[in-house]
């Protein structure tokens, strides 16, 4: 099996919608990350932040949705991100992905994507990469 994607192709943008305090609370419960700085404004302000802000892993989970919306999860080989800026509460991020390499292999094409999450003001909150083996059996 091969992919029809080529270098420079972009995945359709994934708009996430507003990150509310409820979003942060649900993600704390779902992910198991109960770090108070994302949940309790008093703790956040005590640490010198303006307010609570999103868990970095929430942004990475949003990027994973961009991937699994277009590829079977079993094709995902590696996935990495750098947390470049915080995502303030009430932000409305968008996830972007672009093909940067396609390597043809007998056991499936290896696809490399550049990924990022951006806020409407252009701030990049997460920047990363994923490699996928298209047509792999496992």
């Amino acid at each position, binding site marked *: 099996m091969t992919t029809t994607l080529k270098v420079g192709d972009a995945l359709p943008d994934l708009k996430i919608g507003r990150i509310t305090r409820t979003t942060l609370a649900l993600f704390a419960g*779902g992910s198991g990350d109960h770090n108070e700085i994302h949940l309790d404004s008093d703790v956040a302000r005590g640490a010198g932040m303006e307010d609570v802000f999103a868990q970095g892993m929430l942004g990475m989970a949003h990027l*994973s949705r961009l991937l699994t919306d277009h590829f079977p999860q079993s094709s995902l080989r590696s996935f990495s*991100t750098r947390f470049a800026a915080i995502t303030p509460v009430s932000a409305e991020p968008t996830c972007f992905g672009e093909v940067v390499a396609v390597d043809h292999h007998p056991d499936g094409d290896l696809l490399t994507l550049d990924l990022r999450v951006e806020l409407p003001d252009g701030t990049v909150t997460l920047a990363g990469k994923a490699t996928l083996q298209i047509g792999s059996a496992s």
Partner: protein
Amino acid sequence: MAISPSIVGTSTPPVTMTVERGRLQLFAKAIGQSDPLYVDVAAARAAGHPDLPVPPTFLFGLELERPNPFAWIEELGVDMPSVLHGSQSFDYTTMAYAGDVLTAVSTITDVYDKKGGALEFLDRVTHITRDGDPIATLTQTTVVRNS
């Protein structure tokens, strides 16, 4: 404060979690995941999966399933509010599913600082296994902001 490089090589005791469907469904709700594959067992099975798939980044939380998941940081004398997540990577061997019993073991692999010690960095690697077989390897950089 300076974190002692002597902690490099230290590991946390293994933590084991049975992945529950309900947790995966809550995770899906929190991230706005509406693909039935991740919330509806019948849809997952129709797509050839034995149960709800564990989504790609859920594995990060496995290591947090201990009574005080941040003890390893606090024991270094670091205040949790000064801690930020710097980077995260996953290398996948195979998929995991609801009902799986997964085990995580984390090891500190590097400690370094930047900006004259204003920022300290802790690198950790976490191996996740099922019945001793590899599921994924996670690499994490934690940043400590010293004021």
